[in-house]
C-alpha cells in the first residue's frame, strides 16, 4: 500500500466519495478511479463496464472492478448517458493500476445536467476525506 504522500491526485479533476474521478472534456466527461482507489483495490484483473448508450443516475453503480479476491462496484459521479467505454481495458486491466488518470480511464459520458458536478469534491477536499480513512 502507498503512503498518503505517495498518492497522486491531479488538481484539474473532480472526485467522488466513492473514489471515482471526473474530467470535463467539452460536452462530455471522462471517468475513472483515483490512485488511492486503485491502490486499495490491488491488482485489477477485470473491469466490467456498461455498453455505450446505457444511461445511469448520479451515484448509481455502472460496473465493477475485480481484483483476484475482491469485487468493487463503481458509481456514476454524475447522471448521464455512456458515450464510450475504454475497450483497451479488456486486454490491459493493469493500466487502471499503472495509469489511473490516463490509459486507465473507464467511461466517457454525456452529463444530463451541470448541477450534479456541484456535489463533487476538488483535490483538497478529497485528500482530507482520504486522510480521515487512514
Amino acid at each position: 500500500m502507498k503512503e498518503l504522500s505517495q498518492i497522486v491526485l491531479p488538481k484539474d479533476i473532480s472526485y467522488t466519495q466513492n473514489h471515482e474521478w471526473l474530467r470535463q472534456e467539452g460536452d462530455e466527461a471522462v471517468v475513472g478511479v483515483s490512485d488511492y482507489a486503485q491502490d486499495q483495490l490491488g491488482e485489477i484483473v477485470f473491469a466490467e463496464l456498461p455498453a455505450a448508450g446505457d444511461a445511469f443516475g448520479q451515484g448509481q453503480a455502472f460496473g465493477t472492478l475485480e481484483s483476484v479476491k475482491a469485487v468493487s462496484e463503481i458509481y456514476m459521479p454524475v447522471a448521464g448517458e455512456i458515450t464510450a467505454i475504454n475497450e483497451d481495458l479488456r486486454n490491459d486491466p493493469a493500466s487502471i493500476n499503472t495509469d489511473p488518470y490516463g490509459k486507465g480511464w473507464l467511461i466517457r459520458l454525456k452529463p444530463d445536467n451541470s448541477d450534479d458536478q456541484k456535489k463533487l469534491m476538488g483535490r483538497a477536499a478529497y485528500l482530507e476525506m482520504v486522510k480521515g480513512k487512514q
Partner: protein
Amino acid sequence: MNPSVGATGLIFNEPLLWEKGARGRCGFSLPRRDVAAAPLNESLQGEGPDFPDLSELEVTRHFTRLSQWNFGVESGMYPLGSCTMKYNPKTNDRQAALPGMAGIHPLLPIELSQGALQLIYDLERYLAEITGMDAVSVQPAAGSQGELAGMLIFSAYHQSLGRPRTKVLIPDTAHGTNPASAALCGFKAVPVKSNEQGVLSPEVVADLMDEDTAGIMITNPNTLGIFEENIRQVAEIVHARGGLVYGDGANMNAIMGIVNLKAIGVDVMHLNLHKTFSTPHGGGGPGSGPVCVVEKLAPFLPVPRVVKKDETYRLVEDMPQSIGKLHAFYGNFGIQVRAYSYILSLGALLKKVSQFAVLSANYIKARLKGVYHLAYDQPCMHECVFSDKLLEPYKISTLDVAKRLMEMGFHPPTIYFPLVVHGAIMIEPTESESKEDLDHFIDAMIRIAEEAREHPDKLHAAPTVTKVRRLDETGAARNPCLSGR
C-alpha cells in the same frame, strides 16, 4: 525444540496427460466384441474426442506423482477453520464400496433396494436425534444445496400462508454461501452487524425484523467460533413477527449431544456430512448437506421421502407442499453410507467428539494468546480466530504465516475469513489430533511469530520446499488459461 514435521524429499516432475503417451496405446481392458457393428448415419458421427492414449502404468504413475504434490488429512494436521478436517475413517469407505452399496441402480423397484432405503431412513432418524429436529431429508448434495433447500422452504412456507416475504437477515459473520443461497430464492439479503463480543444483539435484530422479512440465517457457533448466547431471544423476536430461523450447521462439530437446535428456536438447518460426520473432502467434494426441520415444516421437505410402512421402506412422492426435487435421485448416497457408518461406530460418544473438539480449540487458543492477536477474547467452541495484528510492525501478514506453516509440515488454517476480522487466522483442530500433534502445531506457530521478528525475509520467501512456490494469481485471472492444448 522438536524437529519440524516438514522435511524435504524427492519430488517428481510430471507433465500434463496429453504431453505423454503415444497414439494407439490403451490403459483400459476393452471388452470382447461379440456382436456385429451396427450402421449409424454418417452425419451423426464425429471424430471422437482428442484424448491422449496411455498405458495403464503411465496413468497410474501420472496420478501417483500428482497425489504426492498434495497435502491431505492423512499427511498431517489440517486445521482449516470452518471445514472440520477430521480423520476420515477407512471402514466407512469399505462399507460404501461394498458391491451391494456401490452397485445399486437408483430406479430399481423398491423391493430390490430395501437395504439402501433402510439406511437412508435410519440415517435421517439419527440426524434428527443428534440435532433435536423433527424431520430430515438427506437429499441435498452439499451444504450449499442444503441451504438452498432451507431457503426454498422459507419461500414455500410464507407462500403457503398467502403472504410471500422478500428479505432475509444474514449476520456479518455468516458464510458467503448464505447470501448467495438466499438470493437464488429471490430474497434480498439484509446484513446484521454482530456486537463487540462477536455475537448478535437481540435489539439489532428487533430493529431489522419486520413483516416483510422471511427470517434469519444464523451459524451457531458462529464463524468466530463463539456460541450465539442470545439465540433464543433472537429466535423469539423473529418468530413473533412470523419469521423463521435458519441454522447453518457447518459448525455442528462443536455441539453434538450438548445443544438441542429445536430448543434454541431453529426451524430449518442443514448439516455437512463431510464436516461433522467424517466423510472425506475429496479435494473439494462430494459433500452431503441434509436439511433438518421442525414438524410444521416437514411437509415442505424435498421428495421423495423414505417412509416405513408394514416393515417395508417406501418412496413417497405425494407431498403437495414439497419444494420438489434437488437432485436427480436421492443425493450423494455414497457419502450418506459413510456418515451412517461413522454414527454407528460412535453412537452417543459423538458428545465426546464435540467435547474434545472444543477442548483442543481452547487449548490452542490459550497457548497462542499473546503470541498472536486474539480478535475476540471470548471462550471459544471448536475453532478460534487470531489475526496478524501483532506482526504488522514487521510487515508480516497472515498469508506469510500460512505459507511458512506449510514448510513446517502443516496445512495452514483458514485465512482472511471471517471478514469481520482483519487478517484472520481461523484454526479448527478437530477432535482427531492428539495433544502431541497440537503441541507440534503450537510450537510451529510460536516459532513463526519469532521468525517474523528476526527473519521476516524467510517468511516472505516461503514456501520454498513445495512443488511450486507462490503462484501468480493475478496473471492467472488477467489472462485465463482454463484448458490445455
